[in-house]
């Protein structure tokens, strides 16, 4: 896809400057590859080492899932600068699509990935279109409203969601059903999901869409004046981001095998958490959201176990403070802070 875009840009512009930029791009993508392989290999090694440790393996699996979700969110939230707190809705759409197709029609979740992606992207586009016409903060408000509506629908539409008591799917182990007896297989599955979102993220960042999204984020008026179709760019970014989030929902459904609206669509536990993970890790970077998930998911678990059990809501008090301090002092996240620290340290050598 990136090559195609490069070829297109090569056709559209002429001259030596284009050639130089094109070689720059190829250099960057190929430079991205060793880091990507290194990161995936390191996580695979961690899964192998933890394969006997049930507790830590489970924690890693959840971190990988939320890492993938945050990487997906980052495509529209980070590259495009459109902060959504409604990604829980696409997550839920993915879960309900896979769950229902598997339960009632015996369709393999591997096949359900496609309808889940299409449905998530369609809902995202329909909801985003009216708000993307406006500038300013309407998008964030609309996404918050969307979450409320989704909860109301999920509670109401019992044949699909099972209402408040939830949707359960039968346990039939097998690769074709995406249900495994070995826990490490799930970790590997979510590593695959994370890797896929990272690849999409890398390709988009180095493609025309990625540059468009960043231009819209940095200055939408200048972007429009330069002939960038703002609306189409934002919608594309949102649809891709929502589709990838929906895939996460499919995998999650097969992992837990029971989902209920309160947990799946919880504004904090999913919607805001995804955005918070990206914020903590580093919005707009490729590996920042993954880093955020590896930090925040264990931290969240720890806070829940040790503070939340002693003081009701204590864990959320801490996360609220992290959210406020993060938005005040760590806008670039841990990834940005590390980069800054490295840059400050390097010249001294």
């Amino acid at each position, binding site marked *: 896809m990136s090559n195609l875009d490069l070829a297109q840009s090569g056709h559209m512009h002429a001259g030596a400057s284009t050639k130089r930029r094109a070689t720059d791009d190829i250099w960057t993508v190929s430079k991205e590859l060793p880091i990507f392989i290194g990161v995936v290999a390191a996580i695979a090694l961690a899964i192998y080492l933890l394969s006997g440790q049930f507790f830590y393996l489970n924690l890693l699996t959840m971190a990988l899932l939320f890492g993938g979700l945050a990487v997906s969110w980052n495509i529209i939230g980070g590259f495009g*600068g459109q*902060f959504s*707190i409604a990604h829980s809705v696409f997550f839920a759409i993915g879960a309900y699509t896979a769950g229902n197709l598997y339960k009632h029609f015996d369709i393999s979740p591997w096949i359900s990935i496609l309808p889940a992606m299409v449905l998530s992207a369609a809902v995202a586009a329909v*909801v985003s279109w*009216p*708000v993307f*016409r*406006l*500038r*300013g*903060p*309407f998008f*964030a*408000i*609309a996404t*918050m*409203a*969307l979450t*409320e*509506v989704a*909860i*109301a*629908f999920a*509670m*109401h539409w019992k044949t699909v969601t099972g209402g408040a008591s939830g949707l359960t799917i039968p346990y039939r182990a097998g690769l074709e059903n995406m249900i495994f007896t070995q826990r490490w297989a799930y970790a590997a599955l979510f590593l695959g999901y994370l890797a896929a979102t990272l690849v999409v993220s890398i390709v988009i960042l180095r493609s025309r869409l990625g540059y468009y999204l960043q231009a819209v984020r940095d*200055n*939408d008026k200048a972007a429009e004046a330069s002939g960038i179709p703002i609306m189409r760019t934002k919608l594309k970014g949102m649809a891709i981001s929502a589709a990838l989030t929906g895939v996460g929902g499919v995998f999650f459904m097969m992992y837990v095998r029971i989902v209920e609206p309160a947990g799946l669509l919880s504004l*904090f536990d999913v919607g*805001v958490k995804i*955005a*918070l993970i990206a*914020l903590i890790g580093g919005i707009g970077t490729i590996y920042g959201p993954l880093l955020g998930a590896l930090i925040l998911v264990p931290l969240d678990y720890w806070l829940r176990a040790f503070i939340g059990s002693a*003081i*009701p*809501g*204590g864990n*959320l*008090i801490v*996360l*609220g*403070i*992290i*959210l*406020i301090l*993060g*938005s*005040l002092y760590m*806008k670039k996240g841990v990834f940005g802070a590390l980069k800054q620290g490295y840059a400050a340290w390097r010249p001294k050598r």
Partner: protein
Amino acid sequence: MGFHTDIAMDQFFNVVALGLLLGGTYALVSVGLNLIFGVIRIVNFSQGEFLMLGMYGAYLGYTTMGLDPYAGAFIVVPALTVLGMIIYWLVMRPLQNEPMMQVFASFGLLLLIQNIVLAITGGVGMSMNTPFSQITLTIAGIQFSATRLIILLASMVAAGALGLYLAKTTFGQAIRAVAQDRKAAQLMGINVERTFMWSFGIGTGLAGLAGVLLTPIYTLSPQIGGNFVMAAFAVVVLGGLGSVLGAFVGGFIVGLTEAFAGYYIDPELKHAVIFIVFIAVLLIRPSGLFGQAGAEEVGLREQS
């Protein structure tokens, strides 16, 4: 036949009455948000939490000092105004030119305030009966609770007072000037940050007032703010950003919509109906019913 239509008409008028009273509640809740979101353009998701704090403040005054909630308002509202000003100064002011970070920070405030109250109260639902909460008035065969009527009245007073304040006083004009063009206002010698701080404080104080007046009606819970904040955003967008009259009328439109949707469609789906109204307004008339055309286009970025 005639008998059946009579019943249907009775139900219809009951739903209208319910919608109007609910509308009064939404109008009151939205007046404060209108100042914060409509005028100074801060997306404050924690607005509902100030309402919740208002409720708990009234409850505290009632249980510790035996204060009637309506008397307690004279302590609670100024306290929440000051709290709002402090929060503006510490959290929102440093993020002035970063609307998205403000969204994050206000969500952090929401979590923080909500869960501090949860930790203190242990999440036990509380309710209280005041001398007013039992009184109902019957007008033309339809029953109205006195507490709801007081809210309706208060929403009119609050909207009227805020509208007059913004239109007539020097400080009100300063708020409007800052909302229109921050740089020009600063050049005219207006202290922009102080104006914003006061606007934010007045907005949170009004949310507290709404909370106090809602105490006799609703069971107190740390999460109750969420019931109103989404409707309030819908009201402000519907009425038109910055338009006090719009927020007032918008409150009644949303209240009536919710009452009708709850009665004739399904109570579970009333939130969905509000959202559809919200989206429809953005599609048809993004500046709201009473907003200046183009008001919604005043992006936050140009104000930097």
